[in-house]
């Protein structure tokens, strides 16, 4: 438990207090129905942020084990959302059961006991081979290739990629590893928030209406630059110099953007607007951690190869 961690969490809480206050003011001023709806959605998002910060901050403060358990649960809920929307056939039943109750817990267990080597190949190699092998036993070859790919994608996105965020706790960079996790989450999530805010304020040109009806060029540029600025200012939480922090933030932001984009494309393919209904104003867990799925492995590897002992 470090002083710095407390400062960061207090800083985020202060930002949320300002956001909540702004929300109250906007609520009073909004008169048109469309503006009201936007403000209502904004306030729901702010309330959800409070819950997320308390849960995540609490887990991180309590230590490594609780953080890993929290991410295990997040992965579980995300995988559940993935399979609720993705069609499967009767023949996939055992593979799905194993994904939820064997592969997912084992993967996080390997993380918990610090077996990095096995952790990094367990899903990409062993789940990849074993799950389709088990599925053949059901004897249903219809769309077999596509079905096997869906099983693997579900695990890679919601379990493997996401788990690289808590895996940061394994790294020895000379400073408290929990701060690296906080840094990653702050930059990724602020990038989303800034993109949303800049998009609402200045957004004109739609980036790719076929994939996301709300993402705009102005939102992306403004959001990315703001998040990189914050990431640079927060370099003190990390072993990075300001310049390195700027470059790494840029990678986080770009990866996060594509994470959101790829998961949106999958949603459109599945004809859904949101992944779930858990968080009011945010959709499901997967809607919230979509950017993290892409940003976490990149940030983890950059930190591990260049800054860890």
């Amino acid at each position, binding site marked *: 438990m470090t002083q710095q961690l407390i400062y960061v969490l207090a800083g985020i809480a202060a930002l949320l207090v300002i956001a909540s206050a702004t929300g109250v003011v906007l609520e009073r001023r909004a008169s048109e129905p469309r503006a009201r709806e936007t403000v209502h959605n904004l306030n729901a998002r702010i309330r959800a942020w409070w819950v997320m910060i308390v849960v995540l901050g609490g887990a991180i403060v309590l230590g490594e084990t609780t953080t890993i358990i929290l991410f295990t649960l997040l992965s*579980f809920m995300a995988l*559940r*959302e993935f*399979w*609720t929307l993705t069609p*499967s056939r*009767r023949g996939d*039943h*055992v593979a*799905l*059961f194993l994904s*939820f109750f064997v592969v997912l817990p084992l993967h996080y267990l390997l993380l918990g006991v610090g077996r990095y080597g096995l952790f990094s190949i367990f899903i990409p190699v062993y789940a990849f081979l074993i799950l389709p092998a088990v599925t053949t036993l059901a004897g249903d070859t219809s769309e077999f290739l596509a079905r096997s790919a869906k099983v693997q994608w579900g695990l890679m996105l919601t379990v493997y990629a996401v788990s690289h965020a808590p895996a940061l706790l394994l790294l020895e960079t000379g400073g408290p590893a929990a701060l690296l996790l906080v840094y990653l989450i702050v930059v990724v999530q602020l990038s989303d928030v800034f993109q949303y805010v800049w998009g609402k304020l200045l957004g004109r040109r739609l980036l790719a209406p076929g994939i996301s009806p709300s993402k705009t060029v102005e939102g992306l540029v403004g959001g990315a630059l703001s998040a990189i600025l914050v990431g640079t200012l927060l370099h003190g939480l990390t072993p990075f110099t300001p310049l390195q922090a700027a470059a790494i933030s840029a990678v986080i932001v770009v990866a996060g953007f594509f994470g959101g984009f790829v998961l949106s494309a999958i949603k459109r393919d599945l*004809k*859904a*607007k*949101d992944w*779930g*209904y858990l968080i009011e104003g945010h959709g499901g867990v997967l809607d919230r951690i979509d950017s993290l799925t892409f940003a976490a492995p990149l940030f983890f590897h950059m930190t591990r190869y260049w800054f860890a002992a």
Partner: protein
Amino acid sequence: MTELVSGLLIWLVRLLLGARADWRGCAPNSERRIYFANHSSHFDTLAVMAALPPPVRRLTRPAAAQDYWGASPARRFIAERCLRAVLIDRAPPAGTDPLAPLQRALEGGCSILIFPEGTRGDGEAIARFRSGIFQLSQRFPDVDLVPVYLDNLQRILPKGSFLIVPITCTARFGAPLRAAPGEERGAFLERARAAVLQLAEPGSAR
């Protein structure tokens, strides 16, 4: 005790299965209704009951197969006491009216939930409806019949498996229908089945 157990059961179902309600064709209300749903898993009854808002749930009694739900004291307790199920004999002796218990429930002012396929399907298709729903529509011409489609349940616990996959299910409630005057039995059963099938269309989802 029963209140506690049924509350716990409903809570557990919501946690494990989601059991979200999607009121597409009508709004929940406390009028007497006949809900009819597709049947693909042992959780179907619990899922629909959990999806109903509590005031409506208290007024609704599910039909349950006597040969399954009456087979052991534990099942009987859950069915009769916790869910206030109406146990139905699926192979009634000649000369008896198998629908009599449901008729009594409706006459008593309750809504009922029935599975007109009669047995659990494979989840891929909806089987032909048995005629009980038609009989009820004739005996209660002023009661709305509400089609319900249970999505995903066959994937949670398919027939023939004991492994539960924790994906979430949705209960979609469609537009109410009634038997038209002079409507043939076969035509009505097909219309009722089509109403459930229509709710299965993924395109109209969300």
